[in-house]
């Protein structure tokens, strides 16, 4: 194989690293790491989306049940119990919407439990009011007591507690994903360090010659870092691209849980949340950074054995 005469020093492989740090194993291992990192990123992004969705949605909704809604309220001037409760809810700070479910909606809710006979049931049904709050931090105990004073027996049921528990679970999943990312990054750094040390051992003679000719540590470390940076970036790119179908598939499966129910099913790549696209794009850069920093550190430490 003939080699073009090297006329530019920037392309000159004076330490022979193209052979000592081959383009086979290192990019392959980094690609595998990047693949795992992409999956971890997808997990983290998914968990984050769920937390957000739950907190915006279910955590800020309340259900208020008013038994015997058509009887007069404690304060008869306020009208029926239902009217009184609705009026109080509308007047409460932090309540953005309060709406009584219609008879049909109520029967539809009960159908799974009471069967088709629910429509004809002689059981007296309570009124159910769906309430939407501005935040999930409202003082529910106070609300409950004020409503009960107006219409005794009224129940306030918050979805916040179990949503908080689910959110905690999702946040733990997210933390696990970040931990996995950190471990993957550490393993990638170890892989680059091992490859760099093998390269140092293989090219020891050349390094000593160049060192003897007055090359500073910076010069030698830069040669190694340029090589490992390029190989790690290549591995990161291959790994992210390989993970793309799997990650996009997961994102599509997750869409019904985080999107508005009426939204049409997204196309394949559009299912990817923006932050995940950003993360996948950043993976090769991050791999390159690991390659650069690890090689610089490894080579500089190794060179201390030379005077």
């Amino acid at each position, binding site marked *: 194989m003939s080699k073009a*005469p*090297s*006329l*530019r*020093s920037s392309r*000159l*492989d*004076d330490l*022979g690293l193209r*052979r000592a740090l081959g383009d086979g194993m290192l990019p392959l291992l980094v690609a595998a790491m990047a693949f795992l990192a992409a999956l971890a990123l997808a997990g983290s992004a998914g968990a984050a989306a769920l937390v957000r969705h739950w907190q915006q949605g279910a955590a800020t909704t309340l259900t208020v049940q008013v038994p015997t809604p058509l009887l007069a309220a404690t304060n008869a001037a306020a009208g029926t119990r239902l009217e009184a409760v609705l009026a109080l809810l509308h007047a409460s700070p932090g309540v953005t919407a309060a709406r009584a479910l219609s008879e049909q909606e109520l029967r539809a809710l009960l159908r799974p439990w009471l069967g088709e006979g629910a429509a004809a049931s002689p059981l007296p049904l309570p009124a159910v009011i769906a309430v939407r709050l501005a935040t999930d931090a409202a003082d529910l105990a106070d609300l409950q007591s004020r409503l009960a004073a107006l219409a005794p027996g009224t129940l306030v049921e918050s979805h916040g507690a179990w949503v908080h528990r689910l959110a905690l679970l999702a946040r733990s999943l997210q933390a696990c994903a970040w931990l996995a990312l950190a471990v993957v990054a550490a393993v990638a750094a170890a892989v680059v360090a091992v490859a760099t040390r093998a390269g140092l051992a293989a090219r020891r*003679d*050349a390094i000593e*010659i*160049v060192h*003897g*000719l*007055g*090359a*500073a*540590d910076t*010069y030698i470390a830069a040669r190694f870092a340029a090589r490992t940076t390029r190989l790690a970036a290549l591995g990161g790119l291959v790994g992210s691209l390989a993970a793309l179908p799997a990650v996009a598939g997961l994102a599509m499966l997750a869409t019904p849980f985080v999107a508005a129910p009426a939204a049409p099913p997204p196309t394949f790549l559009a299912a990817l949340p923006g932050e995940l696209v950003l993360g996948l794009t950043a993976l090769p850069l991050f791999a390159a950074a690991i390659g650069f920093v690890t090689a610089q550190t490894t080579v500089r430490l190794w060179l201390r054995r030379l*005077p």
Partner: protein
Amino acid sequence: MIRLDGVGLTYGSGKTVTEALRGLSFSVPEGGFRWLLGPSGAGKTSLLRLLQLAARPTAGRLSVFEADIGRTPRAALPLLRRRIGMVFQDFRLLAHLSAFDNVALPLRIAGRPEGQVRADVTEMLRWVGLSRRSDARPAELSGGEQQRAAIARAVVCRPGLLLADEPTGNLDDTQAERLMLLLKEMNRLGATVLVATHNAALVARHPARALRLDRGRLVADE
């Protein structure tokens, strides 16, 4: 230029310490020429390693270019090394680079602009008679050609100190004579030159002051 006061050099540590040099004291003025003589194992190569700044003295005081080498910070040594040219018996050319790139190496390490590198290396290869072989790898060069490439690499930066370790060991008499003329030319141009050799005939043909080593000690400086 070079000054040694009680310089010693030991290799290894603990029980396996080998003393290569002990109590060396001499000096060489700027522009001086010295033969470095002595039997194998006398310490000639160790002394050249010290002078090339490839090792630091473990005892005494060594100064090269007025710098106290034992105390100079490590980061300052590369700049000093660039002012020192070294020719090895086994040439130590980089096998995967052409003769041109081997000779260009010191200039590129020093960060010279590529235009100047090309001009200087072309000129240097002509001076040593390797113009037509500039694209050849070391393995494609004869022993004499490799030797000339090695000396071209050693002098391309116009070093103030030129060291040679058995430079004629792989050469026939004609080539050895030609090499001596190159070294003496460098000396005439102002470089301080030290040449370690076994070749008594060569020393006889080019009489000059000699440092004689035996078992790590300086036994004569005359």
